[in-house]
């Protein structure tokens, strides 16, 4: 039975039924302004103080690597034998080495080399890893199986041992270091990209794109890669310090870049031999900046890992 409706509002006047003002109308909507993935990641990253400190340090390091050697009147290989092993002073801010070369200029010149090695290794790893992992994951089936077998074997090779062997064969030098680091280094990236592509390739937007006749290359470029960028970027930020460490390690074994060019690893190695004679600045500055760079990349990588994880998005 339908209860009888009481006519309670019959005496309400029409002016109560005017449209609401625009602002109060929208106040009812339950939504925050739409934020893109990258904006959100940046907001989360900027809340992480340690990571931001790492980012600022890195920007400063890169700027100093570019402009540092220009701040002094000396060049990195200019020898003044009478001014060898001078402690830091107003003339030589980081002191001089045994051949009288200005340590400040050499340190920032070394920064160029170390950072170059780090960034190049990361970029080449990225290119090979994305191409290999993307193709393998996208193709799937037998191709994927075969390509992953190769990866498994390469993954079992001891990384630094293989790098050392390659350096012995190719001879020391800047470009051989980069080649040696990337020949075995891209495997990690390929695994990550392949895993992501496998997860994504049956998602609706990919299927839609394929239904419209997009080629494999286009699907990988437009649909798959943008969605895998998070883990890729994290992996790249962690590759750079690994490469810088490996370069220092190789230089330490005498397999690094050759004189008069000096990377931080070479300088640290030179500095080690004189540490007992009290020329602390010859070890301190390269060692400090290697550690600072690795620290900055590591904390930035940690922060990015949290910031780019879609599961942690609020």
């Amino acid at each position, binding site marked *: 039975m339908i209860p009888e409706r009481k006519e309670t509002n019959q005496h309400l006047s029409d002016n109560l039924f005017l449209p609401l003002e625009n602002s109060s109308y929208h106040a009812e909507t339950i939504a925050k302004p739409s934020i893109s993935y990258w904006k959100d990641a940046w907001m989360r990253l900027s809340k992480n103080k340690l990571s931001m400190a790492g980012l600022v340090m890195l920007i400063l390091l890169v700027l100093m690597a570019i402009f540092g050697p220009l701040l002094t009147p000396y060049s990195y290989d200019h020898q003044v034998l009478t001014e060898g092993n001078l402690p830091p002073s107003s003339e030589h801010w980081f002191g001089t080495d045994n051949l009288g070369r200005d340590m400040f200029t050499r340190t920032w010149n070394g920064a160029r080399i170390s950072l170059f090695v780090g960034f190049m290794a990361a970029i080449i790893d990225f290119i090979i890893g994305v191409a290999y992992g993307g193709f393998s994951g996208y193709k799937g089936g037998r191709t994927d199986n075969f390509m992953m077998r190769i990866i*498994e*074997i390469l993954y*079992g*090779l*001891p*990384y*630094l*041992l*293989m790098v*050392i*062997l*390659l350096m*012995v*064969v190719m001879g020391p030098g800047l470009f051989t270091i980069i080649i040696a680091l990337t020949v075995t280094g891209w495997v990690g990236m390929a695994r990550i990209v392949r*895993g992501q592509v*496998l997860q994504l390739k049956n998602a609706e937007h990919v299927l839609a794109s394929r239904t419209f006749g997009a080629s494999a290359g286009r699907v990988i470029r437009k649909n798959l890669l943008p969605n895998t960028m998070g883990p890729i970027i994290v992996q790249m930020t962690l590759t750079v*310090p690994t490469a810088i*460490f490996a370069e*220092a*390690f190789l230089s*330490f*074994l*005498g*397999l690094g870049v050759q004189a008069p060019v000096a990377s931080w690893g070479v300088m*640290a190695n030179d500095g*080690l031999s004189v*540490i*007992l004679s009290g020329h*602390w600045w010859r*070890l301190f500055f390269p*060692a400090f900046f*290697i*550690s*600072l760079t*690795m*620290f900055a990349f*590591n*904390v930035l990588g940690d922060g990015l890992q949290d910031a780019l994880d879609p599961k942690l998005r609020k």
Partner: protein
Amino acid sequence: MAKYVMNRLFAMVITLWIIVTITFFLMHAVPGSPFNQERNTSEAVQQNLEAHYHLNEPVFIQYAIYIKSLATLDFGPSIKQSSTSVNEMIGRGFPVSAELGITSLIIAIISGIVLGIMAALRHNGAIDYMAMTFAVIGISVPNFIMATLLIQQLAVTWEIFPVATWASPMHMILPSIALATGPMAIIARLTRSSMIEVLNQDYVMTARAKGMTTFQIVMKHALRNALLPVITILGTLVAGVLTGSFVIEKIFAIPGMGKYFINGINDRDYPVIMGTTVFYSAFLIMMLFIVDIAYGILDPRIKLHKRGE
């Protein structure tokens, strides 16, 4: 389980064979014969030397000879130090390196786990921040720099420890610490994050509700589960300690295998480089295998016969 072990053993042999092959052909790709720089050798002596090391044969015959001698665990002779074989070098160097490696792994594991637990129990507290800053610094400072700092401060300035060589337990402390810092930092970070996760589980809450003390909860319930991720990276850590030992042995003048390897590289003594590389690789692959098997035994959730993604 048995099938999985068999598969893994087969894969190990394949990987090892690939390493041997790569190493062999890389070393033979280097231009020139090892005897080229030798002065005062007549043509005949040179030819005899090359014949002695089978260097006059085609590469593939040499390869076959090398594989055959490896199968009998013979790494061949050293070219530069003709009185010693590579086997003797490994026999002399490996025990020393193993002692150094095991000591630093024990230091790294114990202190890393303790640090990680402390940080997790005081999550976001002062101890947590201190421990994690310490850990990030431990990862960032390369081990050869750590070693130098230790020598400079503890051996030269304060004279607490001897500077170098390998004679007594006192000599072992500094190199072991220098080698342990990196792995310790990695273990501490991993233990912390997995411990935080485990401490939020329901069974930990139940244990707490029963009135167990924090110490009991950690020891009886949390630690076991929190350590599983740590076990997975043990293989990688062993690899890190192993490569790290090259530089540490060089800095502290320790007569381990790393010293022979580095000398081999500096002298371009190819049989030594090949032999030590193959030995190191075989050792590492064995370690990874053992870690995987141990993981499967410790974690009943892992089914070894299934290939994981």
